């Protein structure tokens, strides 16, 4: 019986160890753990800063020590996400929306759970001193974010601006959005029918429309099916039938009957791209579209969604040719399309999009953000040819919309994606400056109508502002830049 007593006590000790040690971290992280909330209230949470040091999120304490999280730039909510004392960081019901943003992604650094010297840890633990979090510098440009949000206005949609060189995200807008500071008072924001927590830029899957011709063109050029100067007779009354599906071109000037592939791209000629798709065939078209990562979720600190190329992989001829010009079963997020633009504007590789520029005082490997090349889409040579087609498209068609007078020369492609019963989705993807691209953009206006009218002007303003900010930063020298580019050169990127 004494042995039984000791065995019972041993089992209890093991169970205590299980809950208190093995499962301790999992339990401590539970959003309904009141201890975490009470402990968090005493943390001096770090700030979220933009690449120039502007505050995006900062914790203030009022006279009686009650903390509140202030968001000076509400337009950045899709990136900053939220941290509230009611919900924690990103723990809102419906967190599948991923609206937790950078507050959730870098929670450990902001709280100061990592990268602290032993003395500070002991002071917190033993003396009950408040825990001091780290400031987190994002790649976001607050000025550019503001321009993009204002350009989009009240329309439902998204704008994504990435660095061509390394995939740094400079602006990421999703409308409608939310006020992260007001979440504590709002009643169940996940139930809002306008879905303000839903990040359309990274998780919204939409038919990309004619912007996807960029991908088909890259595949056709890579497979030597066509050349930029190949001549087609697809203007006028030309009609092609693909398995009983009739396709024609509708956007070219009335007198344009014969033109080269670059102009077919500029005129967004569906018939030409249906042919290219048919000539590529299902397997080769899928191979090249997959190379851009459309059917994968891009690695990114915010939650991303995979697009899709086909419902079931069957892609019979009518589905294949409509997919080739971005209709049918193809779905992509604005982030995907910005990365397509970045790959074409760069050396043909798709960069890994990233958001974290720096955490002063913490070594990068403690944060573990991914950087570098996500995948190779096409060869640098093919990328250069598609880039030329996009520059031609801008010269031919986007003066006064995406190509602003006095603005930088750009390359781009519109999209007007049929979307069920409603008005079509308006798209634009592009890059600037045309001769040495630094930034790539994707603009989506949900049910906005024609890409050239609804999306292209937004892209024009955003690209002009991005190039201007880039020039200003270069002129000011590297000291004001938190230095993602520098760090990339010294091996931040992970293998």
């Amino acid at each position, binding site marked *: 019986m004494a042995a*039984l007593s000791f065995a019972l006590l041993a*089992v209890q000790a093991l*169970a205590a160890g299980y*809950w*208190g040690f093995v499962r301790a971290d999992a*339990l401590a992280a539970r959003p309904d*753990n009141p*201890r975490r909330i*009470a402990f968090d209230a005493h943390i001096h949470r770090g700030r979220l800063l933009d690449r120039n040091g502007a505050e995006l999120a900062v914790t203030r304490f009022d006279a009686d020590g009650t903390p509140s999280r202030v968001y000076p730039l509400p337009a950045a909510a899709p990136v900053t996400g939220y941290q509230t004392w009611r919900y924690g960081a990103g723990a809102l019901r419906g967190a599948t929306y991923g609206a937790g943003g950078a507050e959730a992604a870098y929670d450990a650094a902001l709280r100061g759970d990592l990268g602290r010297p032993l003395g500070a840890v002991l002071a917190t633990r033993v003396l009950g001193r408040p825990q001091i979090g780290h400031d987190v510098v994002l790649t976001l440009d607050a000025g550019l974010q503001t321009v993009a949000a204002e350009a989009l206005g009240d329309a439902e949609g998204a704008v994504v601006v990435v660095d061509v060189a390394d995939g740094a995200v400079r602006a990421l807008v999703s409308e409608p959005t939310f006020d992260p500071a007001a979440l504590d008072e709002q009643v169940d924001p996940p139930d809002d029918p306008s879905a303000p927590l839903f990040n359309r830029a990274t998780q919204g899957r939409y038919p990309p429309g004619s912007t996807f011709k960029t991908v088909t063109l890259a595949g056709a050029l890579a497979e030597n099916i066509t050349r930029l100067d190949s001549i087609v007779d697809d203007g006028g009354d030309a009609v092609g039938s693909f398995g009983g599906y009739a396709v024609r071109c509708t956007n070219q000037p009335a007198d344009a009957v014969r033109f080269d592939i670059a102009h077919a791209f500029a005129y967004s000629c569906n018939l030409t791209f249906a042919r290219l798709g048919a000539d590529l065939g299902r397997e080769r078209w899928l191979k090249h579209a997959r190379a851009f990562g459309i059917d994968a979720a891009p690695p990114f600190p915010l939650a991303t969604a995979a697009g899709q190329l086909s419902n079931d992989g069957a892609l019979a001829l009518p589905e294949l040719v409509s997919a080739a010009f971005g209709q049918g079963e193809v779905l992509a997020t604005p982030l995907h399309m910005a990365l397509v633009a970045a790959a074409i504007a760069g050396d043909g590789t798709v960069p890994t999009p990233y958001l974290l520029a720096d955490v002063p005082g913490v070594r990068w490997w403690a944060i573990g953000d991914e950087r570098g090349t996500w995948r190779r889409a096409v060869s640098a040579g093919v990328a250069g040819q598609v880039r030329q087609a996009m520059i031609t498209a801008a010269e031919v068609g986007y003066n006064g919309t995406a190509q602003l007078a006095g603005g930088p020369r750009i390359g781009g492609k519109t999209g007007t994606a049929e979307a069920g019963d409603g008005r079509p989705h308006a798209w634009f993807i592009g890059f600037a400056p045309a001769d040495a691209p630094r930034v790539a953009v994707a603009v989506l206006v949900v049910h906005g109508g024609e890409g050239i009218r609804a999306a292209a002007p937004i892209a024009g303003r955003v690209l002009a502002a991005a190039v201007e900010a880039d020039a200003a930063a270069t002129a000011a020298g590297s000291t004001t830049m938190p230095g993602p580019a520098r760090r990339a050169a010294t091996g931040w990127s992970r293998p």
Partner: protein
Amino acid sequence: MTAARHGFRPVEAVLMAIAGSVAMAAAASPALAAHEAVRAADLLPAASVIGAYAALHALLSWRAADSDRVLVPLLALFAGLSLAIVRRLAPDFGAAELRWQLLAVVVVAAAALGPFEPILFQRYRYSWAIGGILLVAGTILFGRTAVGAPAGSPRLWLGFGALGFQPSEVMKFVLIVFLAGYIDDRRELLSERGPRIAGWRLPPLPYLAPMVVMLGLSLGLLVVQRDLGAALLMFVITLGMIYLATLRADVVVVALGAFALGATYLHRHAQIVATRVAIWLDPWASSQTAGYQLVQGLLAVASGGVLGTGLGLGQPTIIPAVHTDYVFAAIVEELGLAGGIAVLALYGVLAWRGMRIALDARRSFDAHLAAGLTLGFVFQEAIIVGGNLRLMPLTGITLPFLSYGGSSLLVCAASAGLLLRISRSRASDDGAFE
């Protein structure tokens, strides 16, 4: 009985000094956490209880120098911890806790040194048993809920005005005494072989019958009262004592089988049992409602880490009824796994001394009584800590010596005092802790 009746007990003195230091540190710690200074009023309760146990130590040196040397310091340590924890968890009960702890020292002393012989328990065992059953039955008829408890709570209390006690605590004690007396009477008969059925020898049923009737009555009364923890405790104590008396594993197997059947029946037909089991199986599903207490208890354990937050620096008061049902989880939160396992080790020491005393007892009745009382401590501790740690469904009983609760503490004190008394009459000095 070679040891002197008088004589200084150095081992006990050293252990008392350790227990006193721990008790004073435990009393000072929440004060430091709360207002960063220790005032005399913070230490006075612990000092008075430790002083009372020191006086008991002196009394034992004078009147019973041959009694067990470990029990009194152990009780003093439990009392010091209980004072600190209850005052920290439920400051409103601090004054009452101090009164109960001081009264408990008197009860220990009376049980250990009072002018009576435990053999009287044996002589009048049926009177005791009937008295105990009447108590519980009276609770069913006239019982009331705990002071301040919501309507619909189990009515487990008996008494008038501010004076109340839980008859089930007394019932547990009475059952152990009755069983010790009964087993001692019928020990030879009990281990005899009864009729043979299908190659398996039954125990002699006629001799088991009174015991089964007594147990069935008390269990039934407690189940009607919905005091499941006490019912379970009495069942396992009975089983343990019968096994110790007969060393027959088949009796244990049969009893456990009957228990399984009864538990299944209750699970099907008693809402409270079904609810408790459902919460136990998946507390997370109802973490804001029915499973709140269990989930908050586990979160408390998880938040403690290895060394805990420090006494007074955690938030165990989030747990409902923490000062009676969840003292162990509160200890792990604030004193860490180290503190929790140290407390488990204290119960290990209690089990060791109790069993030692039982083995060394001169009279068979004393041996069975000591073993039963020790099993009572061990099983009660296992049921509530097991409930805290989700090893088994939670039933609200107290953690012996540590929880707030007057009835429980006084019954524990009486039991410990009896152990101390029995240790005086041991067969040899071999087992004494020198």
